[in-house]
């Protein structure tokens, strides 16, 4: 279970959000909403442990994540704005490196299956630099389809640059992950059709310092 | 130690240029730092006063 306690994030002089608390349990999805510049990406980076919050803390299974960074990292998959693809490596090699770094077996069969899921198996041997924006996103998302899945997925605008087919595929994947007791945190501008028994929603516009003062 | 006269004191046994060059530059550098610190403090206060005034105006127009 992931628990946030009174998180606060400041960037320079500006307080992006303050007093943000929530609990995310197994099988639940958290959707982070908010206007542009409200700190959605910052919140996700805090939740990954890449950035430390200016106040408050995050707990994974009851323990603060900064105390056991590596252990926590092994439990999560983060897909950010950047696709984390190397232009000079092929889609398959990129996926293999990502899998190996997160401690998963780098078995070619599984890689191809994951790419197939997102309909980019035919690009497996092409260097990432020749792929289109949408194809690159699909290759990045293929990491989600790699077994064994990490329990916590943190996705920053996963639907950007995807066509309808890929959107549906991702929604199915999210639903399956939630059904098997996984957890998902995501930001998105479009409506998501995901079957889950609980979808939490955090609206960062309701956590700004100005509003609290008022 | 008795230098006898100002001339002797300034001449520093023929090394006046070096000795006084060292002391003068040290003095100049330290004074420059002090002046820089004072102007910086004034600048900060002035800048912040403007900053708060602008913020106050902004609040008033909003309210």
């Amino acid at each position, binding site marked *: 279970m992931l628990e946030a306690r009174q998180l606060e994030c400041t960037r320079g002089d500006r307080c992006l959000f303050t007093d943000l608390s929530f609990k995310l349990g197994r099988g639940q999805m958290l959707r982070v909403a908010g206007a542009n510049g409200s700190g959605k990406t910052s919140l996700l980076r805090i939740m990954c442990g*890449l950035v430390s919050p200016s106040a408050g803390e995050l707990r994974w299974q009851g323990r603060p994540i900064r105390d056991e960074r590596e252990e926590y990292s092994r439990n999560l998959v983060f897909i950010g704005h*950047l*696709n984390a693809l*190397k232009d000079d490596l092929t889609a398959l090699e990129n996926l293999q490196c990502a899998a*190996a770094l997160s401690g998963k077996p780098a078995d070619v069969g599984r890689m191809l299956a994951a790419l197939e899921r997102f309909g980019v198996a035919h690009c497996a041997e092409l260097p990432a630099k020749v792929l289109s924006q949408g194809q690159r996103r699909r290759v990045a998302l293929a990491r989600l389809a790699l077994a064994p899945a990490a329990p916590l997925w943190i996705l920053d605008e996963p639907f950007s640059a995807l066509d309808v087919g890929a959107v549906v595929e991702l929604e199915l994947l999210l639903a399956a992950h939630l059904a098997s007791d996984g957890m998902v945190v995501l930001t998105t501008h479009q409506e998501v059709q995901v079957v889950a028994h609980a979808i939490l929603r955090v609206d960062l516009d309701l956590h700004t310092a100005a509003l609290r003062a008022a | 130690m008795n230098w006898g006269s100002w001339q002797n004191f300034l001449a520093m046994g023929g090394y006046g240029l070096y000795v006084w060059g060292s002391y003068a530059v040290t003095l100049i550098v330290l004074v420059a730092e002090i002046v820089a610190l004072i102007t910086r403090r004034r600048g900060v206060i002035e800048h912040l006063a403007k900053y708060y005034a602008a913020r106050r105006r902004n609040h008033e127009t909003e309210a």
Partner: protein
Amino acid sequence: MIRALGWVLRRDLLLAFRRRGDVVNALVFFVIVVSLFPLGVGPEASQLRNMAPGVLWVAALLACMLSLARLYAPDHQDGTLEQMLLAGEPLVVLVMGKVISHWLMSGLPLVLIAPLLGLQFDLPGDALAVLCVSLLIGTPVLSLIGAVGAALTLGVRGSGVLVALLVLPLYVPVLIFGAGSVGAVASGTGAEAHLMLLGGFLALSLVLAPWASAAALRIAME
């Protein structure tokens, strides 16, 4: 842990292989800088022999420093660095992998080509041998210290010049003892003491630099 290090190394070497030009360019830079010195000071053999260790070492420093821009910056831009921080492996280990691959691509070629350039400067055989050994021990230190500078200046404006400003003063001891070892052989006093001290620097920087670099990377990603 070793597996993750192996993967970082493997990936970086593969990338370097696909972009061979970058590696070759750094090497050509080294050769050109070294070859310019005789043109500047004149072709007199005894003078060149005296200068050779210093010239070769300074050129090695510069070549190594130039290639630091490729150490973390591309990973930072395409997001793979974020993923490395979240890999679930100690970051120090991954940093070690990056440093080793940096050395293999920028340090080792210098070691291999240095004897040829030493011949241009009329260095005797034993001095050439010591030059190679000193570069072999010293260039990893350059990569290790450089990794700290590269991590500190990651994504900062004007980082190319800044990294030189930060890293070159820290290279001074390596330069002194690296060039000193070759000079010591030439003057007949033996280079063991120099090489031992270089080895000491290597040990010290192996222990400390990856930690500092990893800490700097975490800071840079905030």
